[in-house]
């Protein structure tokens, strides 16, 4: 019998602003452990059943070091017999974690996995503590690799995404997220985080704004440029966790399967326009599943910057009504290593909620890469 990998559960912590948000003081391993505990509670799966914790993290050092995947499992109370690993593909780390879990499952390396990721951008700065690029690189190469904001400026120029296009995109993201928040659609996936006498139950980055307010913001990367704080995803703290398992395991435990992992792809592009990564990766992943955009009902695409997200949307012909329908990272935040898990988990959940058949989760990745996963409703 052909083995298939399924998403059977998805939980995340609230996403809050790095350094000034409610979770800024929480360690990334504790954030991750909280998501894992909540996932197992909600699915009713015992820790003993989990083969491995496959954990994404973009900058696995400091509090995110020590093989955080292993640490998260132990902190979550999983038995010592459950293994743990850390997956690093920068922003794409936790889509990759889902793929690694699915891949292990397909080659008969286990029946149930926790996949997900964490990033505390409060505790570990973007690019890490000790940046040491190859000394043979030029200043420009370093900038293309490291100053991702400048890649958004370049994408905006090369693909004709104006300041107003970006502001409108950001406004739509905020509006969709606020509407979803008000309707309680985000609360379903969030495991409130207890903090002293209080509980952090809601995402902290979503905000009321207007086109006028967005238009007033200064650019943050380039004088005379187009990218502002309002059209960039904020620095964020958070964690996401998914249960990846096979059919037989799900039947045995009475699990409600959300979606099947149908195909996956990674791709590369010029580091200086890294935001375009999703285009090729998505095309490859859809092609591997024998699909085109017309077959896709739900798209969860990361919004690192409005400039790149809108440019990719145009290149891939993604209809607005299919894209990030509960808002994207500009509104919700982008805890690097946790975002991919949110995209896959959200896409799988939306297939159920919106009665769709197929979903695409995709991200751009610094250094010039894209990552994409196609899901089929279970």
């Amino acid at each position, binding site marked *: 019998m052909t083995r298939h990998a399924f998403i059977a559960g998805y939980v995340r912590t609230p996403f809050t602003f790095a350094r000034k948000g409610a979770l800024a003081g929480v360690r990334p391993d504790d954030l991750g452990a909280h998501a894992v505990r909540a996932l197992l509670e909600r699915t009713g799966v015992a820790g003993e059943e989990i083969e491995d914790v496959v954990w994404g993290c973009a900058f696995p050092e400091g509090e995110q070091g020590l093989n955080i995947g292993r640490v998260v499992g132990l902190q979550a109370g999983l038995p010592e017999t459950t293994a743990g690993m850390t997956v690093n593909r920068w922003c794409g780390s936790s889509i990759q974690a889902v793929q690694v879990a699915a891949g292990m499952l397909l080659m008969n390396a286990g029946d149930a996995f926790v996949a997900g990721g964490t990033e505390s951008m409060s505790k570990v700065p973007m690019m890490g503590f000790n940046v040491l690029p190859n000394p043979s690189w030029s200043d420009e190469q370093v900038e293309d690799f490291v*100053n991702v*904001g400048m890649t958004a400026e370049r994408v905006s120029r090369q693909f004709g995404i104006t300041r107003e296009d970006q502001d409108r995109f950001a406004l739509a993201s905020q509006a969709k997220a606020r509407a979803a928040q008000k309707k309680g659609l985000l609360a379903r996936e969030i495991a409130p985080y207890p903090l002293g006498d209080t509980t952090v139950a809601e995402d902290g980055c979503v905000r009321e704004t207007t086109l006028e307010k967005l238009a007033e913001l200064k650019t943050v990367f380039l*004088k005379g440029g187009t990218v502002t704080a309002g059209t960039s995803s904020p620095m964020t703290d958070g964690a996401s966790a998914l249960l990846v398992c096979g059919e037989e395991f799900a039947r045995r435990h009475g699990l409600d399967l959300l979606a099947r992992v149908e195909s996956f792809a990674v791709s590369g592009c010029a580091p200086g326009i890294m935001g375009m990564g999703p285009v090729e990766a998505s095309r490859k992943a859809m092609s591997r599943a024998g699909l085109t955009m017309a077959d896709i009902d739900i798209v969860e695409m990361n919004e690192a910057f409005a400039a790149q997200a809108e440019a990719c949307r145009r290149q891939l012909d993604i209809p607005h009504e299919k894209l990030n329908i509960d808002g994207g990272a500009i509104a919700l935040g982008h805890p690097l290593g946790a975002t991919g898990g949110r995209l896959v988990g959200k896409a799988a959940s939306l297939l159920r909620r919106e009665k769709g058949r197929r979903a695409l989760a995709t991200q751009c990745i610094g250094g010039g890469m894209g990552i994409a996963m196609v899901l089929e409703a279970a």
Partner: protein
Amino acid sequence: MNAVARISAAAGVERIGLRRAVVIGAGSMGGGIAAQLANAGIPVDLLDVPGADPARRNDPAQKGVERQLKVGGFMSPAAAGLVRPGNIADDMPRLAEADWIVEVIVEEVGAKRALYRQIDAVRKTGSLVSSNTSTILRRALLEGMPRAFASDFVITHFFNPPRVMQLVEIVSGDENPAAVIGTARDYCETALGKTTVDCRDTPGFIANRIGCYALAVAAIEAIRQGVSVEEADAVMMALGAPRTGVFGVLDLIGLDLIPHVWGSLMSALPDADELQDFDLPGTKLVQDLLAAGRLGRKSGEGFYRLTPQRTKQALDLATQDYRDARPFDLGQLPGGGKDLAALLESDDRLGRYAWTVFANLVGYVARIADDISLDRDDIDRAMILGYGWSQGPVALARRYDGARLSARFAAEGRALPARLLEAAPVRAGGGTTAARLSIASLREKGKAVVENEAASLWDMGEGIACLQLHTKLNSFAPAVFSVLEASLEHVRSSFSGLVLGNDDPRAFSAGADLRAFLGMIERKDWAALDAYIKEGQDLFLRMKYAPFPVVAAAHGLALGGGCEFMLHCDAIVAHAELNAGLPETKVGIIPGWGGGTQLLRRAALNPSVPRGPAANAAAVFDVIWRTSVSTSALDARELGMLLPTDRIVMNRAHLLGAARSFAMELAQNYVVPERASIAVAGRSGYLSLINGVRASRNLGQISEADVAIAEALAGALTGGGTAAAHLDEAQIMTLEREACVGLAKLPATAARIEHMLKTGKPLRN
């Protein structure tokens, strides 16, 4: 939690046994006192009334903490972690842990007495209890209280803001054992860094009694004699008051407080007291201003106001109309503001006004001095430290010819103040006048060991020498080097340790002599410039590796070369108020005397900097590139200038003594430190630093000259493209020197230095 762990008790605090304190009342004074306790590393409970919201009962106290964070009461945000907010309904049991309980609640005797009964029920035996009252007598506060409470109770009257103002008035009574009074002094002086002045238990104690009187006389006489607000302010300044004079300070205090502050003092004083003759709250002008809502700065207008165009206007005291302010500086006064006799003898309007204020003030002080103080010099001390006067009324009277003073007083039928001019009787016990270790005290004992016009080496006793710079702001004039060089020899042969320090109220050292630096640039004498930098580097390294310990007694400004001087010591004892930094890039260069090198070394030793050569270089680059200057010694620690092993003292007067003690400790079995080997990040680290600079350039925030400075700095801090993983100090210092000389050759640098010398402000070119 990290924050709490990072701040340890300031030097000497352990010795005086102040392990925990409680402050009750979280207003601006209570919050400020709690913040200063936390600044000294003392855990403190700040209690206030419970909040209305049952879920947030500590809100009022929490707000007090937040206010202090906003107004700068804390020397580091981390210090706020030592303040535990609470409320007097739930948290009185916490008092049982406290060595000192400070009451700072509303000025109502009934409320205070009720609180004292609650305090007495829970406090531990022998804990010190003090009140910050400014208006209520100690004996009134203690009515009906048990003797055991009274014997542990004193008044400790702080001035606003508690972090800044030096004065604490202490009022004790016969019930207080000497040890209790000594404890109160220790707590205020060693832990909080204040200067205490003993006061008798009379209304307003010393500073407010004299200060209120002086302001009332100056204001009312100005109105009577037709002196303008600007003129009156200038005359008061000539008599010792700070820049705000009389009307400026009333605007600052707020006219709405006049009825309360002056009114309560007047009602507490007997009818015969001369303050009753100068009824400020009863003055028509004051009443009119209050009725018009002109309350001073808080309402936008009082005796002065700013127009919407930001021009200053002053009130015409006769018509009560505003007119454009007429700047009046001291130089326009008879005697130019400096010659007191000329001002007081001048038979014109301002001379007569000055004499009236002077004569009333001096006469008043003469008559009440023994009633309010134990020592007449304490009156001056209180006015200088509590009211910011440049000199007190006793010293002021002594500046005027004694015979002339007596004659004029007699002629005007005023009581003779002759007693005031006599030396005060020597007081038995107590007081803060016990000699502290200071350069002045060393000078009294004998001559300097080595000396020139720029610096002196003193014998501090106990085998320790002290090198004192005494140039303008103690900067490094070239002449300093010869004394430094000679000092290293003298200390090697005749002492066991060296302290770097001085008595200057403002500066440890403001750095290199910019004028000398500019001269070499103008002459394009690059060899001389290189030699000047190299001489400093060599001497600093020789000092660092000398066979004796060197301790910096750092305080106030420690900038540029002054900061580098400090960084080359084995240890630093810093006054809590330390403004240290390496702001060289403001004048177009980078630190040349090893500042970057020593910060790199410290970063490697500092547990709060993430490890790794690029991380260390980034931390140091950040401090120099942003021209960060610490706002306190705690902040200097966060910037990586002070190490956890360096010490902080709260009291400036204790600094040299503490530095000498540290040097004596280090001198025992002193081993010359091993030559430092510093991890450098090479070209990789350079690329990483420059990438951050590119981000600023992309945003148009920096000029090409800035980029050149950043590249020079990044190059030096990462080892100049070396492939070696480690360099020694001298190698990095060579890179710093070359970079510095290279930058000095750029036209933008000369322009920056000239502009700084001319305006005192940096030029962005």
